[in-house]
């Protein structure tokens, strides 16, 4: 099962390596991990996408909690939540491909944020599925590079993760 775990952790050097080290040492898998400071700069928030049985994920949350710098851990995937990922795509945009690429970006509600005679940089946000679908939809020969931020997650409604 895929799980999305959010962690509030002290924004200290070394905190990230403790989390990454925990996953590798115990053989848990990380599909993606994002981290950045919160509105309180002394706290970082991580979003971790992992896969595992219920028992494994229970151990993962317990082990994350056990880290001295961890303030809070929640498995967001246990309840309604939102997931977003940002992707930047550089594509070849010449001749008739130029128009076609613009059309595809519009359909996916992506934005073209950089334009040259021969290239576009397209910015797209959404859940992982949407980003994957966009890549599927365009001609792979035109993709020059892609970069994805990894997933950020937040609970819906009154479900709030804070200190």
């Amino acid at each position, binding site marked *: 099962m895929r799980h999305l775990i959010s962690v509030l*952790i002290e924004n200290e050097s*070394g905190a990230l390596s*403790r989390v990454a080290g925990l996953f590798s040492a115990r053989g848990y898998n990380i599909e993606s991990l994002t981290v950045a400071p919160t509105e309180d700069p002394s706290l970082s928030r991580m979003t971790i996408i992992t896969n595992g049985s219920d028992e494994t994920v*229970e151990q993962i949350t317990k082990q994350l909690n056990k880290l001295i710098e*961890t303030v809070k851990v929640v498995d967001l995937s246990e309840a309604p939540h939102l997931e977003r990922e940002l992707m930047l795509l550089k594509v070849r945009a010449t001749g008739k491909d130029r128009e076609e690429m613009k059309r595809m970006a519009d359909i996916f509600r992506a934005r073209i944020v950089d334009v040259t005679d021969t290239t576009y940089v397209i910015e797209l946000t959404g859940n992982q599925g949407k980003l994957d679908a966009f890549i599927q939809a365009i001609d792979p020969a035109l993709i020059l590079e892609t970069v994805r931020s990894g997933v950020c997650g937040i609970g819906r409604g009154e479900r709030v993760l804070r200190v």
Partner: protein
Amino acid sequence: MLLTGAEIVVQCLQRENVKYVFGYPGGAVLHIYDAFFQQDEIRHVLVRHEQAAVHAADGYARASGEVGVALVTSGPGATNAVTGIATAYCDSIPVVILSGQVPTAMIGQDAFQEVDTVGITRPCVKHNFLVKDVAELADTLKKAFHIARTGRPGPVLVDIPKDVSAAKCEFRYPETVSMRSYNPVVKGHQGQIRKAVKALREAKRPILYAGGGVILADAADELTALARRVGAPVTTTLMALGAYPASDRQFLGMPGMHGTYEANLALHHADVVLSVGARFDDRVIGSPEHFASEPRTIIHIDIDPSSISKRVKADLPIVGDVRHVLADFLRILDEEGVTAPSEALAPWWERIEQWRARRCLAYEQPAEGPIKPQYVIETLWKVTKGDAIVTSDVGQHQMWAAQYYRFDHPRRWLNSGGLGTMGVGLPYAMGARFARPDAPVVCVTGEASIQMCIQELSTCKQFRLPLKIVNLNNGYLGMVRQWQQLFHGGRYSESYMDSLPDFAALARAYGHVGIRVDRPADLQPALERAFSEHANELVFLDVRIDPRENVYPMIQGGKGLTEMILSADDL
């Protein structure tokens, strides 16, 4: 008061009531050693290898219940300390390790004696810190001690760059620590505890299964009171020997790979298992699947939630300090008017007595030899009246010491259970002797293990530690040889050690008393002399034992509790 970082270190240690620091100097800690030189409240114990510094601090902590402290230099000092740190980590022992580091401006430049100590030790410490600013030093040290001793204890390392120990700042030691990210639970959930008491009272075949957490929490009295009250049998893991009196009828011995017949069968067939500060590790429950084949209710008390339902699923998890939780159990039993064990346990005890009647630890000592290791430990028990602090190394001798020295009190049995580190025995004995200067301290070791920290005989001379070392010399990496005999077709690959030293002579070379014992009749007199004539000296008894003796019972790794090998005849 304006102090240097080094002076702040000394001040902080004094505020934490540290009496001994086990260490070894070097470039990056010269300022700290200079500060030690100018005070006389804390005694520095100069070891001969940094591994032993951490082991000794760890042994001190195990014997005393206080935080042990080690001090090492950067680079090789820190890497030498790693085995000691990992050993303490695996057994949850509170130790604070101070390591020197190259000056902050040189970090990352591959400076002389630079290693990423925080990175190297990260997976084997409870927590670690790199202090980059002298202004943070006092706070960090306060936190280090707090983290080491609270919750599930463990080693905490503080890495101090040389310029930080030289820099000056205003010293103020914080009175308290408050960390929003670290607040270990102490009290257990009352509803869960009531349910657990009910399950325990209704059990027809209960067992108390106690682990190292009981020792760490100083909960032996509560455990004993509870066992007596409910009349259940008790098994204690290798880490918890002494948490319940071994000479008591309710004690079944230890469970697991080299546990007793009665402990393993009782644990397997119990209908309610009360696990107290134990973790169902693979040396106890070799096969969780086999264990799960029998229905039972598992109550699991542990201060570390991640120990619960890790290998064996708990039906009633209780997170909390085991001493508090057991006290709650007793209070509830008081309220419910339970004062004596229930008659309903009689059939269960009948079964247990039948298992016990197998006398799985019986052995014979032929009068003319060879000396049986079991006989050595039993004689040691007799001569010390069961009252010594016993440390061991790792191997067959460790298991014999655990099986045959009946520990009636906590903190008398010091060994490396989790990491299984050969070499701990002698430094543990040193630490224990500093912690309990009046107690007889015996190190039961093997001719291979003792050589992993034998240089510490020199430290023992310097500090006049009258330890008694009992070397169960079988000429083999005995435990390795046993596995090769049983599971590798008798192919004894590299388990025989040629060219062993004359240990008695070696001990004498270090300035101690060395005695070699070859015949059974000489054993007891030699041991008695060690504690009388040589009471104030370190005595190294090199006891030549039967090289073919194996440790039984034995459960092969990955097998179930009922799949015991009781003797060579079972093979």
